[in-house]
């Protein structure tokens, strides 16, 4: 378990519990008492997170990632690869399978969980070929009438010379365009970080939801602080000003729904988190599948009204 800097007390309690558990004759009463105390502290702590704390939780390396959700939610998943033009970008993964018994297309940004997988998935930062893969899969979904599920988790699109050379801007723009062109219902869940243009490329959907401790922003707090405050030391001020938490964005009408996380954040109970996300997606999909033919029109209507007076 990796503890965040604001979880010191929890870390200490956990260590104490572990100590007792490791004794020859563990005192179960003591363990119970300490565990209850820890749970209470955790609940208090997490019901009162600052915006910056949420950024930390959203980036927690032990949070479930796109592949975890796909494995946990989708039956008979078949991964599809490549943009048919240049390469297979593993920062975006996707494929077909069943959600409950409904055939779906699922497309997600994957950060990786250790050095090897992080490199494989380029830390979840897509290059143009990643967005073009997403576009290709959306075309497939359109052709075969598969509802599309997007999972967003990226610090941003990859800022590299090769990505620019192959048209990063054009790839993102075309992906947004394709999201609007989907004739089938679409659902997007921000599961961790929603980093700017790299995120919105696959975040235009009929229903957009955020996990409680995920964040979604036009720029990273560090980037914003260094531009507007001229110093990254102000990242906490920037986080607050950017209003990037799920609660902020629900209030601003940018997202439709918040999906609750287990006490202490998604990293403390992956299974429960994935179950919550599956439940939320299933509920929304059921609603959308009542009138699938109106999905495109409804999506356009929603974004037309958004941010208007």
């Amino acid at each position, binding site marked *: 378990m990796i503890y965040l800097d604001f979880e010191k007390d929890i870390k200490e309690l956990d260590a104490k519990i572990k100590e007792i558990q490791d004794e020859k004759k563990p005192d179960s009463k003591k363990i119970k008492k300490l565990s209850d105390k820890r749970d209470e502290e955790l609940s208090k702590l997490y019901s009162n997170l600052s915006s910056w704390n949420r950024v930390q939780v959203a980036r927690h390396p032990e949070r479930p990632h796109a592949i975890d959700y796909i494995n946990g939610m989708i039956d008979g998943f078949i991964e599809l690869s490549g943009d048919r033009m240049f390469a297979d970008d593993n920062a975006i993964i996707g494929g077909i399978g069943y959600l409950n018994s409904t055939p779906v297309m699922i497309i997600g940004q994957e950060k990786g969980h250790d050095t090897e997988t992080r490199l494989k998935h380029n830390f979840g930062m897509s290059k143009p070929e990643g967005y073009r893969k997403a576009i290709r899969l959306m075309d497939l979904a359109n052709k075969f009438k598969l509802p599309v599920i997007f999972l967003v988790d990226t610090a941003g699109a990859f*800022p590299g010379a090769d990505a620019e050379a192959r048209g990063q801007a054009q790839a993102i723009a075309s992906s947004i365009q394709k999201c609007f062109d989907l004739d089938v219902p679409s659902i997007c869940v921000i599961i961790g970080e929603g980093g700017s243009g790299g995120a919105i490329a696959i975040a235009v959907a009929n229903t957009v939801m955020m996990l409680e401790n995920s964040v979604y922003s036009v720029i990273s707090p560090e980037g914003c602080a260094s531009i507007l405050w001229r110093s990254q030391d102000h990242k906490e001020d920037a986080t607050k000003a950017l209003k990037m938490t799920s609660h902020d964005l629900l209030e601003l009408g940018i997202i439709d729904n918040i999906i609750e996380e287990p006490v202490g954040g998604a990293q403390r109970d992956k299974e429960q988190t994935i179950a919550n996300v599956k439940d939320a997606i299933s509920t929304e999909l059921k609603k959308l599948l009542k009138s699938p033919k109106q999905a495109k029109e409804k999506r356009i209507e929603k974004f037309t009204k958004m941010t208007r007076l």
Partner: protein
Amino acid sequence: MNWLNSVLRPKIKTMFSKIKDVPENMWLPCPKCGTLMYRKDLHNHLNVCTKCDYHLFLQVEDRFDSLFDNAKYTKVELNSVKEDPLNFKDLKKYKDRLSQYRNITKTQDAIEVAYGKVGGQETVIFAFNFEFMGGSMGTFVGEAIVKAAEIAVKRNAALVAIPASGGARMQESMLSLMQMARTTMAINKVRDAGLPYIVIFANPTMGGVSASFAMLGDIHIAEKGALIGFAGKRVIEQTIKQKLPPEFQTAEYLKEQGMVDIVVHRKDLKETLANVLTILMHNK
């Protein structure tokens, strides 16, 4: 996403200060080669350096004058939006920044929309004012583009975009990010109506602006030397730990990479646009 600070900011700063200095000394040094030009001469050359062809920012009014036939056009009154929706404050209040820029530029925000004829073809043009907060795209700009697209469809006209922008407006955070979606949606309506949508890339077109409506034209025309890209040059250099060549992200480079159809000198822009529209609008 506003990458201005990384690569462009030093350049922008010189552009700003030079432009503001003009009324006093009437002479303007080219930001690229430093040649001193008489302001009137520069204006007569559509703000292109007479020596090195560097394309300086051209005021939106001058854009409209130079592109619409006989400089005749109707300006569109733009919808109001919620001002400072987030009550944003960094070292300065966003509200104060807005009024400061309104005082300097005498405009409401970073965009203007007008319609008229170009080469005899019904055309709606929306052009960015780079001098207003780096032409950044917030709710007002997004709403203006939605309106421009609606007018194009209503008038059965071509839509022409002239971006000059560092990207999304940070001070409106997610509301500005949503304009990437809304503007893309708007130009889809023009596409679905079978009308031409032409993008004229002016210097610079970066970040959330290039990664939305600006990269989705039927035809992409770029002004010579215009910087066009997603991430700022300095950010990329930090990522790859290498210096990038000076031509990186220029209009000419983008043409080589297959992202731009035509690179033009500003003096030829009107003719090029008129010719393109005449062919694409042949059956309208």
